[in-house]
């Protein structure tokens, strides 16, 4: 029961971060600020959702896999953010590709 409550709490927190990421996407003025806010928000959101789910998994193998997905998602998200930032930087230096 306590585990269930805990996982609901974490899931709700995760949802909160996703929604705030959404708001950031909608309201923030500057592109790099948005990139920053969004990366933060969705990493935290995904992390919290996963932690919440960890209390619900049937066995250890699942748990290991969950953690693996999470770690990879962190790496991937960092790489993605880096790629996009470098790309945008190049764009601003050279010609502006935004339409």
């Amino acid at each position: 029961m306590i585990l269930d409550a805990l996982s609901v709490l974490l899931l709700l927190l995760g949802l909160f971060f996703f929604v705030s990421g959404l708001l950031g996407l909608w309201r923030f003025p500057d592109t790099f600020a948005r990139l920053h806010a969004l990366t933060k928000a969705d990493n935290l959101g995904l992390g919290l959702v996963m932690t919440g789910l960890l209390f619900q998994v049937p066995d250890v193998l699942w748990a290991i896999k969950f953690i693996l997905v999470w770690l990879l998602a962190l790496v991937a998200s960092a790489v993605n953010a880096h790629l996009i930032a470098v790309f945008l930087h190049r764009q601003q230096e050279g010609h502006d590709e935004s339409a």
Partner: protein
Amino acid sequence: MNTVLLAVVVVLALVLLISLLIMLSRTRLTDRLLAVQLLGTLGVAILLMLAVVMQQRAFLDTALVLVLLAVVVTAVFTHRQRGGKS
């Protein structure tokens, strides 16, 4: 508990829909790229939730594959240099 989890999935799907609408309403490339990133993370989150709700471990593999190949797609997009000027 499944009902609660499914409710969370529904909310996530709603967030997915709204971020899609935001993406469609934006015209700048960077905004869209960011929206795509948010959509991707939301997709992975929904997939993980579904894995628990439906007791299907293969969805974790799917999530892994999505995460890994998302990097590949972004890399292709940002590294391309085709046509004329470099």
